């Protein structure tokens, strides 16, 4: 199955990525290979077979509604935020990101 350049651009847009022509071309090849590989499954007749949503066959795995103190506090979590390029980092205990509207 051929993946068009438009489809690559659409997918990149959904993830807010900008790709160079070279990257787009290489991803196009990768995606085509992945889809070709997965497409082998189409040889099977799955008419009337319930899709597999999960493999453990469990249901109703719930927890109690109790607050549990977290090992990772605010400082630890904010420390994970990379700091570079001015508009990425932390400020006033919040995560700073370039403006996206």
């Amino acid at each position, binding site marked *: 199955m051929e993946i068009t350049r438009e489809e690559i651009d*659409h997918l990149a847009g*959904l*993830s*807010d990525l900008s790709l160079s022509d070279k990257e787009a071309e290489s991803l196009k090849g990768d995606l085509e290979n992945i889809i070709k590989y997965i497409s082998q499954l189409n040889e099977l007749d799955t008419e009337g077979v319930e*899709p597999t*949503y*999960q*493999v*453990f066959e*469990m*249901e*109703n*795995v*719930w*927890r*109690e*509604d*109790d*607050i*549990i103190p*977290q090992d*990772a506090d*605010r400082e630890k*979590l*904010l420390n*994970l935020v990379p700091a570079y390029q001015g*508009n990425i980092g932390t*400020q*006033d*205990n*919040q*995560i*700073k*990101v*370039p*403006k*996206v*509207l």
Partner: protein
Amino acid sequence: MKYYPTIGIECHVQLSTKTKLFSEVDNDARGKEPNSCVSPVDYALPGMLPRLNGEAIKYAIRAGKAMNCKINQYSRFDRKHYFYPDSPKGFQITQFYHPIIGEGYVELPSGTKIRIEHAHLEGDAGKLTHFDTYSLVDLNRVDTPLIEIVSMPDIHSSADARDYCKELWRLMCYAGVTNGDLYNGNMRFDVNTSLAPEGAKELGTRTEVKNLNSFRSVERAIEYEIKRQSKLLDSGEKVIQETLGWNDATGETTGQRSKEEAKDYRYMPEPDIPPIKLSEEFIKEEMEKVPMLPNDYREKFGGVIPNDTLEVLLDYPQLMGKLGELSDKSIKNIANLFSSVLLAEEKSSEMLEQLPTGKQLEDLSEMKEKGELSSTGMKEVFAKLFDPQMKTKDTCNIAKELNVIQENDTGALEAIVDGVIADPACAQAVADYKAGSEKVLGFLVGQVMKASRGKANPGAAQQILKQKLQ
């Protein structure tokens, strides 16, 4: 040309569970520091595993019951993918294919029924604050449990839309599933509006106004859209299907995105959360926990409390609950005090949290009926039932302390009336009354009230005066 509007509303309700939908952290971030109610799950750190809050499922069942909805015994979660800094996961966990709440309806005070298509559980997104070149992200709200309620396009006026939103708010508050704090965004409305020529079979192109957080803004935004779309259609232009924002200050909707393309959320089953399978008994047990709802109270109090007073009081489940504790004969008096005294107080929201006991209110109404308290006296005693120094006392003792119990003792009253009749200052009035002037009676009653320092029962005083002056 005359157009017929068709409106559908999606409403997000924040549930008031103790913890979030998928992590064991505090769900009530009101007044808390940014990013202080978060866990590695909310941060979507590698290896994190969301764990479903069982209480949210129970809340959903109760919310469904309040909207006369069928509860689906089987439901499960899906991932809805989008890229935005308010969601570190890169997707929202929601119920796209198999929602927990099925079809139902909400009945408006007018009797109009608005059908519910379905309602589902999902996690909220974080909060962004935008500055000139950057935005700040607070993840406290990430995965706060939400119920998204999707109505059928059964609404055809801005007034019905407002009534629907308000009734939904009441239902969710009565069912006890949300704090219902609109100011803090506990309920948010997205409104779809389209116009079609009167009598047309096909619906027109719709626009969606997102993120309205008050009943008034829902009403105004729809009125604005109806006008704006009518103008476009009248001049032969087309309505563009788009998502709009609402500016409360200017009273206008504004385009949010320049190009509207079909949304591509790439839904897939959420593999980390096994499906929910509910037994009929479990659903029934939870449904039975739903207390009386606004319509039950309308039926119960309809003949006793005037309609407009009842509709005001219905905004306060605490007041309805309290009125429900009282005997039929006290309900009217106390409902009146709730609407004319309590809700008029500046501190009414605090007072609502510490209502007097049923017995105190019952006694208060009874004292009024027996003539022991005037209307003014009743209001004074009522106010003191909220006074931290007084509130633990019996109503009767408070009335005594305030010295407002009316003199009904005929002997004592007669002595006061005799005194007034004998008073030279009243001689002219007495003579006028005897000569046939009825209107001076009011003056004489006033004198009796004065002599009794306001404690006489004016009705009784008038009767005794009449007898003695015959």
